[in-house]
C-alpha cells in the first residue's frame, strides 16, 4: 500500500506537520503498519515535488518543522484513490505457498504435518485478532475494527486454503507419486524457504 495515498488522505482534514501525520496514520490503523518519520518526510518531499502538497506559509513550529497542506491536484489525487480499486498486481512472494510446494518434493518432509502445524498456528493468531476486536468494539474504535476484520478474513482465507490443501493431498495420496524434479537438482540451486 502506498504511504503516499495514506498521507494525502490524512491531509484532507487540514494542514499537518510530518510528525502529526505519522501519529495520525498509526492511530487510525491501530499501529498495524508502523511508519518511521524518515519515510514520512521523504514521501512529503516527493509529494511537494509532484505538486500535490505545499508547505503552509509561516506554518513552521518553534523547531522549524513545516506544516503541509493539500493542493487542488492533491485533493483530486485523494478522490481518485478512494474511487479506484486496489490492483492486486503480481502475487507477492508467499513464504507459506513456497514452503508447501517444496515440502511436496523435499524428501523426509511430511506435507500434512506442515499443513497441520500452520493451521493451528494461524487459528491461534485468529483467536488473538478476535480478542483485539472485542476490545476495539468496546472502545468504539471503528477504523481499527475494520483493519482487524481485514486481518481476520485474510487469516481465515489462509486456513480455508490449508483445509483445501489437506483434502487435495488426501485425494492425491492414492495416485502414483509425482515426478520430483526439485529433488534431483543440486541442493545449491533450490530456493531456500527461510532466509
Amino acid at each position, binding site marked *: 500500500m502506498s504511504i503516499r495515498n495514506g498521507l494525502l488522505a490524512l491531509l484532507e482534514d487540514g494542514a499537518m506537520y510530518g510528525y502529526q501525520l505519522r501519529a495520525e496514520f498509526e492511530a487510525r490503523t491501530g499501529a498495524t*503498519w*508502523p511508519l518511521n518519520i524518515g519515510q514520512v518526510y521523504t514521501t512529503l518531499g516527493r509529494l511537494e515535488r509532484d505538486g500535490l502538497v505545499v508547505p503552509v506559509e509561516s506554518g513552521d513550529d518553534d523547531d522549524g518543522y513545516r506544516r503541509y497542506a493539500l493542493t487542488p491536484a492533491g485533493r483530486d489525487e485523494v478522490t481518485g484513490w478512494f474511487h479506484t480499486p486496489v490492483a492486486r498486481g503480481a502475487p507477492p512472494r508467499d513464504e507459506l505457498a513456497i514452503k508447501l510446494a517444496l515440502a511436496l518434493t523435499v524428501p523426509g518432509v511430511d506435507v500434512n504435518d506442515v499443513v497441520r502445524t500452520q493451521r*493451528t498456528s*494461524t*487459528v*491461534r493468531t485468529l*483467536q*488473538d485478532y478476535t*480478542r483485539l476486536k472485542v476490545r476495539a468494539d468496546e472502545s468504539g474504535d471503528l477504523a481499527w475494527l475494520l483493519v482487524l476484520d481485514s486481518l*481476520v478474513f485474510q487469516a481465515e482465507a489462509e486456513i480455508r486454503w490449508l483445509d483445501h490443501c489437506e483434502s487435495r493431498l488426501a485425494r492425491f495420496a492414492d495416485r502414483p507419486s509425482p515426478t520430483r524434479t526439485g529433488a534431483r537438482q543440486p541442493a545449491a540451486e533450490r530456493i531456500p524457504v527461510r532466509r
Partner: protein
Amino acid sequence: MTTSGTDLVLELREVTRVHGGGANAVHALRGVSIQVWAGELVAIMGPSGSGKSTLLTLAGGLDEPSEGAVLVEGRDLGTLSRSELAAVRRRQVGYVFQDFNLIPALTAAENVALPRELDGMSARRARREAVRALAEVDLHDLADRFPEDMSGGQQQRVAIARALIGDRRLVLADEPTGALDSTTGEAVLRLLRARCDAGAGGVLVTHEARHAAWADRVIFLRDGVIVDETGPPAQVESLLGLGAEQ
C-alpha cells in the same frame, strides 16, 4: 488430574462411538477426551465426517458412547435413569442442532418457551422469558411467527434463543452460524461468548475458523481423533504492534 470438581461442566473420558457393526462398523469417535470448564468456550473444527456432531450429541446426552464416559457437571450420564437424563437435557444443557429442530406447529416464542414449560414453569412466565431470549437474538418482532414463515437465518436464531433460555450451564452448538450472514453470525458468536463469560461452559462446532476464533481453545478433529489443539490465549497486550515484522 481433576475429576468431578464443581467447575468442570463437561468431561469426555476416552469416548469411543461405533456406528453399526462387523465389516460396516464406522468408528465415528475413537478415544476422545475433552474437558470444558465453567466460563470456557471450546470450538471443535474438522472436515465433514470427522465426528463433530457425534461428539456433540454424546455431550448432550442424546446418544450414548460405545466406550468411555460423559460427565455433565460431574454426573456420569451413563448412570442416570431415563427421566434423570431428560431432566439434565432440559435444565442443564442448551443444544443448537445443525438442522435447527424447531417444532413446526409451534410459534417462535412457543418453541423457545417449551423447555421451560416442560420443566413446570407457568406458561406466562415461560413466554416472558422466551420473548426476552428472542430479543437477545434480535427477533422480538417475530415471536408469534411459525418456523415455516421465517428465513433460514431467523429459524437458526430461534434455535439459539431456545438453547440459551433459562440458566443452562452447558451450551452445545452445532454449526449455529450456518445460515447466517457474516455480521449476524458474529452477533451469535458474541452471544455465545457472553454466555460463557457469564459462567457457562460452551462447545461450538464450526467449520469457519473466523467463528472458532471466538473460543478459548480450538480442538481439531480428524477421523474421530483429536489431532491438534490451540493452547491458552496469548497476552493481548503483546499483540499491539502485531504485523510490524511483516
